[in-house]
């Protein structure tokens, strides 16, 4: 698995992607600064800022950019064959791709979310909640997007549409449909750890953790099946 990981990580960590995510991270941090410096800002505003700019935007977009490219780029440029045509279990290739994606995306996410939550200046529980929620959702999104990238052409574009429509709009409308978005579960984790009042459709931390772990497992399983059935060029 380490050999596959070493190929994938070098492919993923391109300057273009790092610059793009870095720029988006700076914007997210600036949102935190803006909220903090607003005259009548409250801890509820801080929560909304982390939720909207972090968990709904920065975390899924960062996961999408790196995870969809982990195998997707190799599919597109026809180099997947160099990993696939080896006596390696497909689940190991999936885990190597997920590991490579997380190696790049998690530091970006954690650094940005840490800076944002510290700048918002609520309390330690809020910072911890932000980091836990961001980590859990980055892993879950990445597990989904690795397979998505391997299967769907132009996965980045379709992934952005999914993030905007499903994780953005549907998750915000406050109906039961929100429970089909991953964002609700990371948001619920943040609420419970930071001690923010739960909204109507929020779930408990146990349920949120179980759902995020289950989504990760399903993502890994689907990617493995996609690799097993792939037509490799």
């Amino acid at each position, binding site marked *: 698995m*380490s*050999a*596959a990981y*070493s*190929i994938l990580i*070098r*492919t993923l960590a*391109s300057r273009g992607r790092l610059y793009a995510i870095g720029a988006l991270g700076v914007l997210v941090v600036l949102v935190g600064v803006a909220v903090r410096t607003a005259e009548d800002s409250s801890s509820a505003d801080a929560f909304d800022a982390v939720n909207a700019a972090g968990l709904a935007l920065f975390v899924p977009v960062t996961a999408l950019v790196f995870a969809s490219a982990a195998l997707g780029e*190799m599919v597109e*440029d*026809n*180099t997947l*064959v*160099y*990993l*696939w*045509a*080896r*006596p*390696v*279990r*497909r689940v190991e290739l999936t885990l190597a791709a997920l590991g490579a994606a997380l190696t790049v995306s998690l530091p970006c996410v954690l650094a940005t979310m840490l800076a944002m939550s510290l700048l918002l200046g609520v309390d330690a529980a809020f910072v911890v909640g932000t980091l836990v929620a961001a980590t859990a959702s980055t892993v879950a999104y990445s597990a989904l997007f690795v397979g998505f990238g391997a299967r769907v052409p132009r996965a980045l574009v379709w992934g952005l549409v999914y993030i905007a429509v499903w994780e953005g709009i549907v998750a915000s409308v406050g109906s039961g449909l929100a429970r089909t978005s991953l964002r609700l579960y990371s948001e619920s984790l943040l609420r419970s750890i930071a001690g923010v009042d739960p909204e109507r459709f929020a779930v408990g931390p146990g349920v949120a953790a179980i759902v995020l772990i289950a989504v990760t497992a399903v993502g890994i399983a689907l990617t493995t099946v996609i690799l097993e059935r792939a*037509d*490799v*060029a």
Partner: protein
Amino acid sequence: MNGRAQMNAEPVIVVEGVSKWFRDLVALSDVSLTIGPGVTGLLGPNGAGKSTLLRVVCGLTAPSKGSVRVLGRRPRVDRELWRDLGLVPQQEALPEQLTALTFVTAAARLQGVAGAREAAAAHLDLVQLDPGDTRTLRSYSKGMRQRVKVAAALVHRPPVMVLDEPLNGLDPAQRVRMIELFRTLGAEGHCVLASSHILDEVERFGSRVVVIAEGRLAAEGPFHQIRELMDDRPHRLRLRTDRPRELAAALVGAGVASGVAVSAATNDEPGSVVVDTLEVAAFRHAVAALAVRADARLYELAPLDDDLDSVFRYLVERRYR
């Protein structure tokens, strides 16, 4: 059982009634063949289905119909077969950010080769690339990339090697060395299946040839047999002459033409005779003397169907007639 040991007992690659289609496009049609140890050249024009056949043989894609066995195993589902199988894919693309040594070392590790780095260095050396080269593959020429791919395919010394156009991009000297390498591997008992669309290349690969055209098996057997088939087919040639009718009559009268079509001479251009002949050597031998006898001046004698595509078409038609 060790793959090499198994090869002595049975054909290494068995393709039975394989067809492959992509929506409306039939890439392979009912192909059956067996391939044993040694070097086998897979010959066919571009778009004939060679790469599709090699992909099916390696399990990179499933056949729409039929079955494939490599060393008695099913390549599409038996992942462990890759321990005994090496592939040089057709595409030029390689992971651009890696050095050649990193790439081949990763290949060796994925194959479970002990001393992966040393093995990778030795195989880069074998294909005459510098293992110490610190440049990434992005800066490599087509020929260098091709050699990196060969090193990565050979690094675990598999008993079966499938090479899709392995000589593409190589200069003449590198081609000679690469062919020599394949022949050596074949002589050692490896099964090497290498494709090409160039007849002369395949001739130098070794004695056995499989010809694919229009997705179908056109011919298979020793190279000299295929060559004879190609030479003995009906040929069509065009003669330019100032007396086409007289020359045509002389050719038919002498029995060296099975059919003629005459175009009369004009003020600007000489006439022409398009000749079908079953014995091209006898025709070439007789035509000058017949022209003298007919008092005809010969301006040109040109084959009309000597390109490989025509040869392949003929072989397909002959096989399925």
